[in-house]
């Protein structure tokens, strides 16, 4: 556990009192006035007591929490354990995580006995796609008199993977998938879609597939996953390359593209399709997303992805994708005139091509 020491600073109330005490002390010194001396003493005494009695060992607190996976902007509930390793009892501490609690109030911990784990639960929201290995928390206390404030930064080694934010898919993409569904390859299948499994219902999904009885029994919204009317394997090419000669990329487009990739994978996976993903960055990473493990790996890669400089690609890289019935091309690096894309234009749908 990495830690830093606590710092002490004056609060607004403390600054006012300090100024008044200084003025009174100056007046008593200059004028040799007993009343001014008394005023200075009455003003300075709380400052002194607050400073001396300040809880300076906030950084002896230890945070214990597990890895967390979320998507950018999505709220989640975090629970962690806080253990005070110092000697005395900590009082009236405010606990916050700057990265995920920007719009949330800090958590008040009225008392923390030494050595006793305190469970802290709070609502959080990670706004930026990232993969951090070390989470940083801030513990603040103004106890006892609120004239000084002690602040400690607590760092703990714990994964926080913020996947790209899910984005609403474009109409032509959804339409394309729907057309594929409406024209099933296997005419021998039943008229309706086959039930495949149940999964958690996501907030932005159509609620018509929610399984009411199972939702009531498990206590959370679950929805049906169907299969049989979509091609078993769909290809996605995520092109992180910038166009030739360009050294920067629109961050908004890039983030949107990653979100579109994540949404598309989730959409296809929800329909029991396998997804063949090719990520074109400095190297070429290929994923066959068949289950949650591969999906997690892909999302982790997306959480860490960054634009790549332009480079040419070997032609055989797309052979496998040419054999697929349909694939999606996501030009995250804004390289729209890729020759590989032109070669696959017959059976590839460009996602986010007209973004800008």
């Amino acid at each position, binding site marked *: *556990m990495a*830690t830093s*020491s*606590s710092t002490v600073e004056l609060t607004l*109330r403390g600054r*006012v009192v300090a100024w008044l005490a200084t003025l009174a*002390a100056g007046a*008593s*010194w*200059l004028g*040799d006035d*007993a*009343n001014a*001396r*008394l*005023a*200075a*003493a*009455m*003003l*300075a*005494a*709380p400052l*002194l*007591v607050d*400073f*001396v*009695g*300040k809880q*300076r*060992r906030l*950084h*002896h607190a*230890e945070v214990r929490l597990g890895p967390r996976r979320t998507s950018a902007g999505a709220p989640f509930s975090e629970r962690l354990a806080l*253990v005070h*390793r*110092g000697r005395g009892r900590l*009082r*009236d501490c*405010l606990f916050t995580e700057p990265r995920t609690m920007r719009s949330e*109030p*800090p*958590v*008040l*911990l*009225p*008392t923390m006995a030494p050595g006793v784990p305190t469970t802290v639960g709070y609502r959080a929201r990670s706004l930026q796609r990232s*993969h951090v*290995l070390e989470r940083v928390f801030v513990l603040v*206390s*103004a*106890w*006892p*008199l*609120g004239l000084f404030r002690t602040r400690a930064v607590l760092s703990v*080694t714990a994964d926080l993977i913020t996947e790209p934010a899910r984005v609403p898919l474009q109409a032509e993409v959804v339409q394309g998938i729907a057309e594929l569904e409406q024209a099933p390859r296997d005419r021998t299948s039943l008229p309706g879609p086959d039930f495949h499994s149940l999964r958690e219902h996501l907030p932005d999904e159509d609620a018509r597939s929610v399984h009411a009885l199972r939702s009531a029994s498990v206590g959370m919204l679950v929805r049906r996953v169907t299969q049989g009317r979509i091609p078993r394997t769909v290809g996605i090419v995520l092109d992180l390359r910038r166009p030739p000669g360009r050294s920067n990329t629109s961050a908004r487009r890039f983030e949107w593209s990653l979100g579109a990739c994540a949404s598309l994978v989730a959409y296809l996976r929800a329909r029991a399709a396998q997804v063949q993903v090719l990520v074109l960055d*400095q*190297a070429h*990473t290929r994923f066959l997303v068949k289950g949650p493990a591969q999906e997690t790996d892909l999302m982790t*890669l997306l959480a860490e992805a960054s634009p790549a400089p332009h480079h040419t690609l070997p032609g055989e890289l797309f052979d496998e994708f040419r054999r697929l019935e349909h694939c999606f091309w996501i030009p995250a690096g804004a390289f729209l005139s890729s020759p590989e894309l032109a070669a696959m234009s017959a059976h590839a749908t460009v996602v986010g091509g007209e973004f800008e």
Partner: protein
Amino acid sequence: MKRPVPMSLARRTAALLLLCCTTLALANLPASDLPLGWLLAFTLPGATLGLLRKKAARPWDLALLGILLQAGACYLALEVEGPMTRPAALACTILPPLAFVTTRREESDLSLGLFLSFCVLLVGIILDGIHLPLIAAYAGASCLSLYNAAHLTARAASRRPAPTPSERPRLGDVLVSSGGIALACLLSAFAIERALGLLPSPTGPRGSAVSSPTDSRSTSRTVGLGESFVLGGSQGVLAELRGERLLRARSPDGSPVAADLYLRSGFFAVPGLDRWQTGPLTRTKVPSTVPFVLRPPEPRVPVETLRFERLAGSRNFVFVPPDTCEVRGLEGLYGDAARGWLRQEEGLPQEVYEVVWQRLDGLPAGPLDPNAASQGLLSVPDGFDRAPFHELLEAWQVGDPPRTAMERIAAGLRRHCRYDRSEPIGPHPLALQNFLFAAEDRRGYCMHFASAAALMLRLRGIPCRIAVGVYGGEADAEVDGARSYGSQHAHAWVEVRFQRRWVVFDPTPPAERGRRAPIAAEPAPASEAPDAEAAESGDLLAETFDLLTRPWLLAVALLLALLTALWPAGSPRPAHGITPTGAKSARRLLVRLLRALADAGHLRRHGQTLESFARELGRQKRLLPEVSAAMFAYQEVRFGGCRLDAGRESVLLRGIEAASGLRAMANRD
């Protein structure tokens, strides 16, 4: 079973504490300056407005109502109580807003209310002096209020109105911690007040008593070493001290000068409630070649000689010990030998003179001088109200025997009054009356102690006068055995006229005479002064208290407290198993590994995790198994709680070798 403190109780406590602070601040205002009618007139409209705040629809309605209420209340108060004093009228501008914020009870009102009540408290102190119990109670209540406000602020920041039962602080815990903090604040305030007195003021250094002689001529407030001494005044005599050096005393044989030596430069025999004056003198002048003889030496008592070097501040004053026989070496010396009063003519440069004297402490002084009444040593001021003085004398059981009377008066004054280097403050018009008869905080300095004691002695038929000069001094840095005296050592005491000689009687508390002298040098009073006996009889508790409340001691205590607080907190105690053994060594090996990879052209980006970097190497087909194993070994040590044993170290070293080989591969490619 411990009872929890609910949140609503914290808010109610905050309101109650603010009300306490406001009430105490109002109670500190003097009723003579601000009668009850006026007090109500300035507080009731504001309080009513604060209570109606939530019910009023528009602010302008509220403002109009406030104006009407205030105007009506002022009119009624003027009719009933009549006009009040001008300072109180000025101070009353704070009262309506204070009453308003006290009853309004919004979140921001707590700080504002505390500030306004503190202003009102200060106004009360300025108008009516320090009422210690009230001020201590206010300080305690305000500290508790701050404590409560800090808790409420934290609660408001977390936006959680209702804590869960497990989160609620226990009542006992809250009481102990808040009470301890309030007590610490009180003690700190006392210590800071005393310690601030150590600061030398540019407008008037603190000393033990009397003023400089320059002011005795330049202003109408002729005080101290001059021909009269005015008690009271807005600034007090301390403001007129300038801290100049007065004289240096040494023995011709180099023996050390006693620290308990009283050096008189003048006296005041004509009494007054507000002013003491020297009285009639029979002046004679002697030529410089002839010593000025004050009295013949007593037989069988050793004669001592002191050499005085007058410095800039002493002007033409001649300082002599109480039992001086003769003074020599000064040109233009004149004085009254019978009364022991000496001066040098103005403008003469001679600054060194010698005094022959005897220490007559051990000799009997005989009965009181029967002729003293004719010399005016038993007179009391005109229009002097003796009744309250007699009440005090009876309360202190002051009898007729002179020694007993002196002893009991000194002890009574020390119990009844407090030494403070500032003017007495109180409802009475005269400083001496405030010093003796104020309801609370009867304070004063040596001249007040001496004046009160002299008047009481005269009321008991004991002839006396007030002597002024210097006392204590400090060891001279330039001349061994010598003592230097400055205006900060100015002092006043009483001299009682016995048949054979004057006897020094110093009613000022021993610890307060010559404040800058070291404690060890604090002398018992000279001659048969009853202070020594009083000290011996032992107000040991008072002496201990005096010692503990020494400003320098409190300043050191404050400094120690600050240093303790500033002492580095150090790194946290690691929990068992938290810090992996050998993590630093593993880190060093990892740095070598990364450096080798960077040399081979594989630079880890800033902020890139080790896993991401390994994945990137894998995509480039550059992740050798040894390098991958080395990274895994590092992760095991750093985050897995494993030790850096020989096996993992060798894995890391092999990884470094393999990474170095990558460079050769890159060169070949």
